[in-house]
């Protein structure tokens, strides 16, 4: 059984569990939206003194910060107890396309070219990670949610704003992948 769990999980089990997480949070009287935590952290750090957007009672969001803490623990448990240590099994075509951009075939879940300590602390490497994070944080709050709040929660309720946001997510992702990647990687 443990050997089976240690393998990568098929998409349908993962999709089922993500919807189960959404329904559990609804049952607990909350809603599934992870990026709200970023705003909460700004508020908890005292941002409300300078910017009105962060002036709210962030303690009402303790449940979501606790969820965040759980997510970190979950990642730790997955890597220490539930991992087969195999590299991610992406398609041959993706390996080939990424090879043309200077990426070696996967040896784990993440590329060393971006996330190894050595590369993350070069000027270019650091800027890539910083700008990536900056756009995710800015964009998710501007759009009023991220993958969990819009793509999962909002789409499940068939909300048009969430559909527009998801179209935006993909437009931005395709722009980055096809137009900007060839300029920054080679």
């Amino acid at each position, binding site marked *: 059984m443990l050997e089976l769990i240690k393998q990568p999980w098929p998409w*349908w089990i993962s999709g089922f569990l993500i919807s189960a997480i959404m329904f559990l949070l609804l*049952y607990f009287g909350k809603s599934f939206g992870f990026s709200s935590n970023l705003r909460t952290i700004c508020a908890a750090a005292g941002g409300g003194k300078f910017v009105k957007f962060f002036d709210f009672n962030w303690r009402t969001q303790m449940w979501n910060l606790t*969820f965040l803490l759980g997510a970190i623990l979950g990642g730790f448990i997955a890597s220490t107890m539930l991992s087969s240590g195999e590299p991610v099994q992406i398609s041959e075509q993706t390996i080939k396309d990424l090879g043309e951009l200077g990426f070696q075939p996967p040896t784990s879940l993440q590329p060393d070219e971006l996330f190894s300590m050595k590369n993350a602390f070069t000027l270019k490497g650091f800027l890539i990670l910083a700008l990536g994070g900056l756009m995710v944080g800015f964009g998710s*709050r501007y759009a009023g949610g991220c993958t*969990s709040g819009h793509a999962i929660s909002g789409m499940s309720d068939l909300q048009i704003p969430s559909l527009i946001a998801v179209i935006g997510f993909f437009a931005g992702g395709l722009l980055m992948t096809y137009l900007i990647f060839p300029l920054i990687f080679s």
Partner: protein
Amino acid sequence: MKLLKFLLVGMIFGIVMAKSEAMSWYRIQEMFRFQAFHMYGIIGTAVTLGVLGVLLIKKYSIRDFDGNPILFPPKEKSVWRYLLGGIIFGLGWALSGSCPGPMVVNIGYGFYTLTIVFFFAIVGTYLYGIVKNKLPH
């Protein structure tokens, strides 16, 4: 102890992000290149079951464990904030290969440099708070 259940649900989330490989930059690239069904299968299954479940909750007015009705407040009507915000998010999602949840899962997993990504996501949210009133919404 009221918070313990959220810790547990968060843990399940973290494990699912790791075991589904949705936390992997490679998987996000494969998705944006339309070269595998994997990520579409995950999101598609979650949304399909989500739609059915939300319909049932509404049809049978199912209540939460405190006895309060489960409500789905409509998001404010607009195009610009969702489209522009969405595009900026998507640019960052493809570049870093991570949306906010998987960032912290990666840190727990041992990919510590995602701390840089997560820290700047907080900075990005703060910047949004500063310029919010100057942006089209």
